[in-house]
């Protein structure tokens, strides 16, 4: 397995060298992107790449972008990021949680390069910023829809890795499904990958075999949608709209819209106003969008989901509003209390009612 990873890494580096050689011109501001999947995944990486293209369009000749796909998370990413900087990048966006340590390690070596790490929380040096979207706001809306629509009362959830971002999504979706349907259960399968279409399809099938008639995914490919389509159940687009599976199985989706953030940050870096910060935006500022809800959803459910979406956007409703207990029954949030960002950012527990265990 190790040799495979090494191979992939050297493959990635080979691509990086080529990309770097092709754009050795140092004059325009060069922005690099490190992707965990391929730009053709129609999910997570696709949306980041849309953000990259928006940057290119916005700045024209003043900015040049390079990207590197399928970069393994972990230590190998360090070499890929370094290579990108040696190739002339002035700013690097590392777009997956697993790049957290490599990003900070490389940032310490290149104080003049700006680093933007998606979904992480470490900003060791003043040239690192972190950013993420409040995906859990979108999860609340689709959880609400799922709770209404499930007939078997089992919702299947394909998790990637048991990290706070994913656990938060599971909790949010479950709370809002339970809210409208007290009998609902949620089964979680961890795929231990962000992007492996075959593995994601298998995970979806396993959940369907276990009785799920709604599939949610926190992985990046459209493979679970295909399986859901075959089984005649419903699913939700993840990270990208996945509208090609509408009106069913995909009845709605959570879309990540990174373009405004990327443009703003590149602009700040170019005119010298950039500073290290943490950005966490949701439905309100438009970083998280809900894709069109199709006719497969009953009209009154569409209406109530839209209402919830608008309340979240307006800041009137927080998806984690008490009373909420932890899985073991101890109190977490009192009546009317709203979760603080610190707890949410490090969320490592399930809420009451979820029956599975978080693997460690």
């Amino acid at each position, binding site marked *: 397995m190790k040799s495979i990873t090494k191979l992939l890494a050297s493959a990635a580096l080979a691509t990086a060298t080529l990309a770097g050689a092709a754009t050795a011109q140092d004059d325009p501001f060069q922005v690099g992107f490190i992707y965990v999947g391929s730009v053709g995944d129609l999910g997570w990486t696709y949306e980041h790449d849309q953000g990259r293209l928006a940057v290119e369009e916005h700045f024209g000749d003043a900015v040049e972008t390079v990207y590197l796909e399928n970069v393994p998370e972990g230590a190998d990413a360090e070499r890929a990021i370094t290579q990108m900087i040696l190739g002339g990048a002035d700013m690097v966006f590392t777009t997956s949680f697993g790049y957290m340590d490599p990003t900070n390690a490389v940032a310490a070596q290149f104080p003049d390069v700006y680093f933007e790490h998606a979904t992480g929380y470490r900003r060791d040096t003043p040239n690192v910023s972190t950013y993420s979207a409040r995906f859990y706001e979108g999860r609340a809306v689709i959880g609400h829809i799922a709770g209404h629509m499930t007939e078997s009362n089992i919702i299947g959830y394909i998790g990637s890795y048991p990290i706070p971002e994913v656990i938060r999504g599971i909790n949010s979706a479950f709370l809002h499904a339970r809210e409208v349907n007290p009998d609902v259960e949620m089964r979680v399968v961890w795929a231990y990958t962000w992007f492996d279409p075959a593995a994601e399809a298998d995970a979806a*099938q396993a959940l369907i075999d276990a009785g799920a008639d709604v599939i949610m995914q926190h992985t990046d490919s459209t493979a679970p949608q295909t399986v859901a389509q075959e089984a005649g159940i419903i699913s939700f687009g993840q990270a990208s709209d996945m509208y090609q599976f509408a009106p069913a199985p995909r009845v709605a989706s959570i879309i990540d819209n990174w373009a405004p953030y990327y443009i703003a940050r590149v602009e700040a870096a170019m005119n010298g106003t950039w500073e290290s910060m943490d950005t966490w935006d949701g439905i309100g500022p438009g970083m998280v969008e809900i894709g069109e809800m199709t006719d497969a959803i009953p009209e009154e459910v569409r209406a109530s989901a839209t209402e919830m979406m608008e309340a979240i956007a307006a800041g009137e409703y927080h998806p984690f509003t008490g009373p909420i207990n932890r899985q073991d029954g101890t109190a977490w949030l009192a009546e009317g209390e709203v979760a603080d960002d610190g707890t949410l950012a490090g969320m490592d527990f399930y809420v009451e009612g979820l029956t599975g265990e978080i693997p460690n």
Partner: protein
Amino acid sequence: MSIDLVALTVALITVSTPVLLAAIGELVVEKSGVLNLGVEGMMITGAVVGFVTAVETGSPTLAFLAGMGGGMALSLIFAVLTQLLLSNQVATGLALTLFGLGLSALLGVGYPGQTPPVVTDPFPAALAEILVVGPILFGHSLVTYLSVLLVAAVWYVLAFTRTGLILRAVGESHEAAHALGYKVVRIRILAILFGGACAGLGGAFLSVVRVQNWIEGMTAGAGWIALALVVFASWKPWRVLFGAYLFGGIAALQLRLQAAEIGVPVALLDASPYLVTIIVLVLISSDRSRAALNAPAALGRVFHASS
């Protein structure tokens, strides 16, 4: 909450098919004394060519044939480089994988998200509804049955026919085979092409039947598992089948254990195929005579007729 064993068996067969096809092809290649590490590249090329053909022509049969053709075309490059130009097999194979991944991304532009035609199963749906045996025996795609037949055919040819004997002779000692008048290079090129066709078919199965979509990098390491599988099976066809179903079974089982909320160390289960492969490697290399019995003696060695 228990696990449906029938559903599990059906799933593991489907999960295993692409890897099984690639592995049985690679077994023949290695039996002829050639180590082709380009399986992943040939699979992904087969996946993209198969998918594109399926979308464009609407014919699954043509798609599978095209997938085989794609894998073969890539393996032909390997054959020319290693057999005629005598390049290093390990380096060429690795390059083939990188090339295949890049080429497939290029060929597949515009195809992600397209809908391929539905592949009809060879047996009527009524048969698949028979309790227990129905779904397991009659509920699969034609390619799945083909993969099992292929294992049987490879086993038979290698063990009982003159063709198999010649192929093995070439793989054990190319000098001796050459001295006997067998065309070592020609035989090896044919074996390499067969391996390419099998890997390509496995890739096409993945994109057209199992995922029904083209996504860049979708083989996600299946080709490497196929290579490990050949070693795990110590170059024996039926063991390849057993190994493929075992590896696939572990993958399918661990997902279902999770869905049933049965607490198991998932990471350990996930890693177990690799652990087993390492153990097998240690076992077969611990004893010189046993290793000599299994691994083709000329595996990976360059053959030059004048030497």
